[in-house]
């Protein structure tokens, strides 16, 4: 036995902490347009370099460049811009509502809006996403009623989820949005099962599963990818790498050594690594994976590389574990600004229209909030107590019936 005493192990640490100057110098960001777009039916062995680069379309000037440009009509781009802005403004407003004591919890997707907006718009109405809590953009892009969001966040008498769920853990079947839960990762495999069921029925609907970078460490992640690969399932499995998991940076999930997209290689699946702050790149990559899936060539893993610009949630204060000004130094910019700049550059948008839109959305949000508050914010209104006892099973059994009676003082 060769024996060098003194084994050690290593605990990854981010390069900067509070008080340090932000440092993104370690990032290797290829220029927009630099990555060639292979045929979406290409066999996996030909695709093994893709996980180690970064697919980008919008360059620093706001031009759409390269193979991956999805060439979307301006109308579509404006709709995407609107959905991203609505998400951002709604998040900010409801975050404030939490600070005002109107609900128990809130969580924003600031800086990550391009991801769910692009994917929501790109995929079909009948496709199903298995979202995380950070995908409000999906619903915004599909015009989910603001008042239903507010009522859910307030857990009030008109809450579509009947007061049962923590704020923002939406469920919206008709909008292709599967029930979110507090448990991380445990729905990744359901995305695969749903898509397998669609394939079993010879249907044309595909599924999209999403987890955060931190959540890739769960066994669920591996199990979902294994099933997706083995049965060649029409599903798109995604990782939003916003580089943080509450206070842990992505190195704790393994990013010191490789990319999240490269996890695809373990399964013989293609892996795309995408600038997640670039709506066009997200769109194009999702489209590539969707075409592959619809052609029965199976699943793709997509890493959406982005940055969590806000705290994790209302329970978090990121200045305790990373430099307070880190968000403003993030080199891949803001997804809303970047799309706006592009639209202006191609002559399809201007500052005046932008300001007007901000105002219009603000009004809509204010109206929805007002309507929701009229019903009641948390604690001021709640669904009838019976709702606590419904849907445990399709038909309540004697336990639920007896307990309902007790609770209602009958």
């Amino acid at each position, binding site marked *: 036995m060769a024996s060098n005493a003194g084994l050690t192990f290593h605990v990854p640490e981010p390069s900067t902490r509070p008080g340090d100057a932000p440092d993104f110098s370690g990032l290797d960001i290829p220029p927009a347009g630099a990555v060639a777009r292979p045929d979406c039916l290409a066999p996996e062995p030909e695709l093994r370099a893709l996980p180690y680069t970064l697919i980008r379309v919008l360059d620093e000037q706001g031009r759409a460049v390269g193979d991956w440009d999805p060439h979307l009509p301006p109308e579509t781009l404006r709709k995407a811009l609107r959905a991203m802005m609505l998400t951002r403004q709604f998040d900010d407003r409801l975050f404030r509502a939490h600070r005002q004591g109107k609900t128990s919890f809130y969580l924003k997707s600031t800086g990550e809006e391009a991801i769910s907006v692009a994917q929501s718009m790109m995929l079909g109405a009948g496709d199903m996403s298995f979202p995380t809590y950070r995908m409000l953009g999906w619903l915004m892009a599909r015009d989910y009623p603001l008042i239903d969001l507010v009522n859910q966040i307030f857990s009030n008498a008109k809450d579509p989820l009947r007061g049962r769920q923590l704020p923002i853990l939406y469920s919206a079947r008709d909008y292709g949005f599967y029930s979110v839960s507090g448990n991380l990762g*445990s729905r990744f495999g359901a995305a695969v099962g749903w*898509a397998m069921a669609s394939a079993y029925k010879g249907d044309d609907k595909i599924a999209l599963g999403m987890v955060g970078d931190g959540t890739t460490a769960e066994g669920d992640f591996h199990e*979902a990818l294994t099933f997706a690969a083995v049965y060649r399932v029409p599903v798109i499995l995604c990782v939003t790498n916003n580089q943080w998991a509450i206070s842990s940076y992505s190195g704790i999930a393994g990013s010191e050594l490789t990319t999240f997209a490269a996890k695809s290689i373990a399964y013989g699946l293609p892996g795309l690594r995408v600038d997640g702050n670039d709506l066009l790149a997200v769109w194009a990559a999702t489209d590539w994976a969707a075409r592959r899936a619809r052609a029965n060539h199976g699943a793709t893993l997509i890493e959406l590389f982005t940055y969590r610009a806000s705290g994790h949630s209302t329970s978090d204060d990121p200045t305790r574990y990373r430099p307070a000004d880190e968000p403003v130094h993030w080199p891949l910019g803001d997804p809303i600004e970047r799309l706006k700049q592009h639209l202006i550059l191609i002559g399809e948008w201007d500052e005046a229209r932008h300001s007007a839109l901000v105002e219009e959305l603000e009004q809509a949000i204010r109206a929805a909030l007002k309507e929701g508050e009229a019903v009641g914010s948390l604690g001021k209104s709640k669904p009838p107590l019976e709702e606590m006892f419904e849907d445990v099973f399709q038909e309540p059994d004697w336990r639920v019936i007896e307990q309902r009676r007790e609770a209602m003082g009958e």
Partner: protein
Amino acid sequence: MTAMSMIQALNSALDVTMAGDPDVLVFGEDVGYFGGVFRVTDGLQAKHGITRCFDTPISEGGIIATAIGMGAYGLRPVPEIQFADYILPAFDQLVSEAARLRYRSGGEFCAPITVRSPYGGGIFGGQTHSQSPEALFAHVVGLKTVIPSNPYDAKGLLIASIEDNDPVIFLEPKRLYNGPFDGRIDQPVRSWAKEPTGEVPEGHYTVPLGKAAIVRPGEDVTVLAYGTMVHVCAAAIEDSGYDAELIDLRSIVPLDIDTIVESVSKTGRCIIVHEASRFGGFGGELSALIQERCFYALEAPVQRVTGYDTPYPHAFEWDYFPGPKRVHAALDLVMKAN
């Protein structure tokens, strides 16, 4: 009616539901071409096609997650977990997803899945092929747990479970697969062929969930059991000579509380028998319910006869297994009380 073993009855239940409903799929480790390590899915792949009955990776969490997704789409999957001991890697899927989906989504989605799994001892399977985890499921709101004790019930309960729109854990007493077993280990092995409950209709029928069976009516004492223990209790009652009322719960969630209360109110005495370890086992819940609801009728403390609070040890199979002697002793105890 045809003579069927429990394996054949379960196979028939799957076959009948697959034939009647194209949305029923069966999958699990070794269930496809091979037909399952206990042969319960034998022939289903050949008959119904490889996309309706197929092998899965060894990943119990993945199996259940896949089933939940299929159920959310609208199918009615019937996954098999090869041994109940190996359900635990899927426990989070069952508790946090399957059991909670309907509730948390306000009824938008549900998980109409039936998870079949052989459980229990009596086959010298050692610690990890012998466990009885039913109490872990009984405590989980949103799950149903069904345990047959004979071929007729097995088929009818399995069909009812598959047709149910909520998630069902369907535990199959593996020691009963090929014949009844009453714990008299010195007796020759029996088959289902000569048993009345081994006579099984070939077509579709259901045994409703939540309805216990009075296996043997009696006046002296109530005996509550399920799975293999039903047969052990019958033997012990026979040995004891008491006029005991033997109730086979058949499903522990939903529980047939009315039948239990009615019987104990009548007899005033009760023993509860399960193979699982005692502490925190399902017997505790039954005992609590009975003393809550029949307190003034009780003439003796409710007794539990169970596996010991140890793992299921290979060499000590018959010391651990709660056989007719231990049940008989408990009958004596409650009958002689007061």
